[in-house]
């Protein structure tokens, strides 16, 4: 029997001709020509349009809806309210596990946040449904809402993020602070933020008896299917979700949102296909956001600038009715060496929609505060901030003592610093000016993001025509899964990319897991890799058992799959094509499945993190306070790079997100009504091209034998971390003003 195990297979050790190539997006042409079909582009026959009416108060009850007026509007077919919504088999308020979030599916007249769906109007046209929703003219009984972090009673949540402990204490922080030569304490604030994917949540739902077909963007189709099955009391196999393209997700399409289910309910109610697409403004409520945070950091350092203590305390919020706690303090777990580390969380409950995973949940705000605080500590020690970081380099994970599975952070610092010209940085703030008199500042931040693995399954087929098929219900939300996973697929089955049909983006394919946690390429890629290895093994079995094959009896030497042929590992001149093997065996195809999952033993032994170093230059007008990031260099080490073009684009996107976090993004909440008052992209600022004159990334090589068979870490979120702090630190270096409130706006720099 051939031994083709995941880590031994030379196909994968050497990696074939596909992995590592900077291919352009396979779906690029479809996208730039408008041919890529997003959920809302589907218009099945008999389609009706649904529009949600959302609450304009944040807490109270709906006491009146003018259903008659809406129904009387020409074109309106039905108004769905708590009174007539279809019965559900599952309770939308049930919480069987922490990853099931409570949904607002018109279960009562209660209003728990502004923007909550309170009714749905279904009509022949979008316009009629829109007007119908206006005509409902809801009236409320409302109570004053809790809106800000000071409005609620604090408590320690039982868990934060996806189930991490709210508190972790390693060593004695108080003793460390007492023994410190220098200590600082600083409090940083980050605002509520909304995901704002380009494509708003949309669903086109069709029922055929108790079978349901829906087009809707999903970062996790199998989970969405299970949720729908439970809510509607039908077997998951009866549900088909198509999600070939997502116009961005960033976490708000990770788990099914309420409005998506409402579209399905409406289709059931009216017995016709229904399309529901949220407006931009309607994304500010029922589909998640990032909680505001207030983070207090206490750091101590000895005379050599080595940390003696690091305490990171986060106050954040969840909704009044459900739990998601932004795990910001956990950004301090694995980054800097310190004999004493405490990461603590407290929460308040606010009258808002439930916060949700949002790109780099925890790490984004946590890193912003940590990297600022580390800079303040470096300043207190009189040290260059990069030198300070190097003195506190964690050789092992500080809180556990585990070695890192791989860590090329030193290389990231060195390469980034060199590219940026960091060594010319004067220590004192407010000491650089450009030729026009603008203040110039340079800052650094360390990037870190855990290398996670979830679970996924894939199926691989090799056919007698010499081609192959690889199937996985994976999700392309713009990051390039169609391309990168297809590259892995081609190498997995030992074929040229052109010869492999890669099928994805649909729930009738093997469960591709969740596209989140920066783990999709690693997880789905591992599943594909193992399915490929397994199908190649089948083929090899056939060949090696057949005395007419040149591979007969290869036995323990094993075979290598490449370019549609199996080669003897010990003698590559002896080989046979896939087609011949199957031809002789009289088989049309061979098929196998494979799984991707974390290796629990390796996870226990090693700390697994991707790292990076981000260097920022900002210019600040000394009188007017306006800030511009003029240079950004990020050097990242994240294991094996499947497609450098896609990866660079992820790093760019992350770094731009970091600029946004540092200087632009915030939901401006009306403290009285609990409503975000800038719920559109004219008011909710993200950077424009003019805000990003120069971006550069460096891919630092890193081989990781432990994270997974392919050595892949994640790249989707890490770019945000480090960047926010680097910019904040650069603003301080430019101006001498330490702004501890994000975003850093010009009024805070006026002096």
């Amino acid at each position: 029997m051939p031994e083709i195990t995941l880590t031994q297979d030379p196909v994968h050790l050497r990696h074939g001709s596909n992995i590592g190539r900077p291919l352009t997006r396979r779906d690029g042409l479809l996208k730039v020509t408008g041919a890529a079909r997003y959920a809302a582009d589907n218009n099945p026959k008999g389609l009706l349009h649904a529009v949600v009416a959302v609450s304009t108060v944040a807490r109270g009850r709906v006491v009146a809806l003018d259903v008659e007026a809406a129904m009387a509007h020409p074109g309106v077919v039905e108004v769905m309210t708590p009174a007539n919504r279809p019965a559900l088999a599952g309770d939308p308020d049930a919480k069987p596990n922490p990853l099931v979030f409570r949904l607002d599916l018109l279960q009562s007249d209660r209003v728990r946040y502004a923007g909550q769906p309170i009714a749905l109007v279904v009509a022949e046209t979008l316009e009629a449904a829109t007007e119908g929703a206006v005509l409902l003219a809801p009236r409320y009984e409302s109570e004053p809402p809790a809106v800000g972090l000071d409005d609620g009673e604090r408590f320690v949540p039982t868990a934060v993020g996806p189930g991490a402990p709210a508190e972790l204490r390693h060593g004695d922080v108080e003793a460390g602070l007492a023994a410190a030569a220098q200590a600082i304490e600083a409090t940083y604030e980050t605002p509520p933020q909304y995901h704002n994917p380009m494509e708003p949540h949309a669903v086109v739902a069709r029922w055929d008896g108790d079978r349901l077909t829906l087009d809707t963007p999903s970062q996790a189709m199998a989970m969405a299917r299970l949720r729908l099955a439970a809510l509607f009391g039908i077997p998951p196999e009866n549900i088909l979700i198509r999600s070939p393209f997502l116009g961005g997700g960033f976490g708000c399409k990770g788990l099914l949102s309420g409005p998506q289910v409402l579209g399905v309910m409406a289709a059931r109610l009216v017995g016709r296909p229904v399309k529901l697409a949220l407006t931009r403004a309607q994304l500010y409520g029922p589909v998640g956001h990032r909680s505001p945070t207030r983070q207090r950091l206490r750091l101590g350092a000895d005379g050599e600038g080595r940390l003696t203590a690091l305490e990171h305390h986060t106050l954040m919020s969840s909704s009044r009715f459900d739990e998601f706690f932004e795990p910001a303090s956990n950004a301090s777990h694995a980054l800097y060496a310190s004999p004493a580390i405490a990461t603590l969380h407290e929460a308040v409950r606010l009258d808002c929609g439930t916060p949700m995973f949002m790109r780099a949940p925890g790490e984004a705000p946590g890193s912003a505060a940590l990297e600022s605080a580390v800079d303040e500590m470096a300043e207190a020690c009189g040290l260059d901030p990069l030198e300070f970081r190097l003195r506190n380099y964690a050789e092992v994970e500080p809180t556990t003592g585990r070695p890192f599975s791989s860590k090329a952070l030193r290389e990231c610092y060195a390469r980034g610093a060199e590219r940026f010209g960091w060594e010319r940085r004067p220590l004192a703030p407010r000491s650089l000016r450009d030729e026009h008199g603008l203040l110039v500042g340079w800052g650094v931040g360390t990037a870190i993001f855990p290398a996670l693995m979830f679970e996924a399954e894939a199926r691989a087929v090799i056919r007698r025509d010499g081609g192959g098929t690889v199937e996985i219900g994976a999700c392309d939300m713009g990051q390039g899964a169609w391309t990168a996973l297809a590259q892995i697929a081609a190498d997995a089955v030992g074929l040229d990319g052109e010869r492999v049909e890669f099928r994805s983006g649909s729930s009738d394919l093997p469960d591709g897991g969740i596209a989140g946690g920066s783990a999709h390429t690693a997880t789905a890629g591992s599943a594909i890799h193992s399915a490929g290895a397994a199908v190649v093994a089948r083929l090899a079995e056939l060949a090696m058992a057949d005395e007419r094959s040149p591979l007969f009896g290869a036995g323990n030497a094993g075979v290598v799959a490449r370019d549609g042929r199996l080669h003897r590992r010990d003698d590559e001149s002896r080989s046979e094509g896939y087609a011949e093997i199957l031809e002789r065996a009289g088989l049309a195809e061979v098929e196998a499945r494979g799984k991707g999952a974390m290796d629990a033993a390796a996870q226990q032994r090693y700390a697994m993190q991707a790292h990076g170093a981000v260097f920022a230059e900002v210019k600040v007008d000394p009188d007017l306070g306006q800030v511009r990031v003029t240079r950004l260099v990020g050097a990242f080490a994240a294991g094996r790079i499947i497609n450098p073009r896609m990866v660079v684009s992820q790093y760019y996107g992350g770094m731009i997100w970091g600029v946004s976090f540092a200087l632009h993004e915030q939901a401006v909440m009306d403290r009285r009504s609990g409503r975000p008052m800038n719920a559109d992209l004219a008011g909710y600022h993200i950077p424009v091209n003019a805000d990003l004159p120069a971006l550069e990334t460096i891919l630092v090589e890193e081989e990781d034998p432990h994270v997974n068979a392919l050595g892949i870490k994640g790249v989707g979120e890490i770019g945000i971390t480090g960047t926010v702090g680097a910019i904040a630190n650069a603003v301080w270096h430019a101006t001498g003003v330490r702004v501890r409130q994000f975003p850093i706006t010009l009024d805070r720099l006026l002096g």
Partner: protein
Amino acid sequence: MKRFDYVRPATVAEAVAAAAEPGAAYLAGGTNLLDLMKSGAAAPGRLVDVSRLPGLDRIEELPDGGLRIGALVRNADLAHDSDFARRFPAIAEALLSGASAQLRNAATVGGNLLQRTRCAWFADPASACNRRAPGSGCDARGGDSRQQAVLGWNEACVATHPSDFCVPLAALDAVVEIEGRAGRRAVAFEDFHRLPGQTPERETTLAQGELVVALRLPAGAEAFSANARYLKVRERTSFAFAVVSAAAALRLEGGRIAEARLALGGVAAKPWRCPEAEALLAGRPPGPEAFRQAAEAALAEARAPGDNAFKIELARRTAARALTLALAGTPARVPALPASPFAPVPGALVHA
């Protein structure tokens, strides 16, 4: 959708007649009106589409040396008219600092003048707003005040006029040509927009159905072309409304300021002309001292309705800087980052 009439008149007279009834609104580029209709903040019963009226899209020389700009000239076309940009560089710069290229291609001169405030509570039909629903109150009071006025506001309304274009127009004594059923009239720019008073819903001097047909720039305005700038302080480098802006223009004679013009944006319900500052500068040698005093004078009456007092000092600094930039001279072409503090100023260190 709420049903409304849509008419496309063939002549100005037809347009004016069609818009005479209350509830009728003119539609030009639609970049502002349609957004407000979508949010429900505007719900006209009749749209009178003037975008194709003949004859209103021309830039013409006037016999007295002035310039007449038709109300339908697109913002982009005006800014990129090289003759116009040479004669009125601060106006071209202001236009190009506004919105985005796509919006400037669609937006018209008339629509820009008549654009509504960006006050978030105004745009939100669920909020009380005296400007949108007279007498309903003002929910902006007590809300985030970054966009609110520091000059000319009262308890009834604290909104600001968001236009960039209008700021140098105010500084340069533009004149608005208006056609109504009673015929044509001309209004000084200064008198065109109104402060809230007790009727914040009346934003301009226009009566129902009156149509802006053109803008006139007087012959004298061109005399500032060598030293005229617009400066716009904003929360991102492009595609953002001004937090505060200033248009400054100087006519220099023998090392002295013969005549100065200064107007501020983002600080009041109308583009804010600063006659006190102008008077203070006239006849003086230009320089930081004079500019600072002018800026102080311009903001002498300012007060903050909320926690936006920073805008008062910011407006002073913006005014002083705009004057400094004007003194440094109009650049040969509009900078790639128009009106931005990050636009390089050749040969001059303008920062403190």
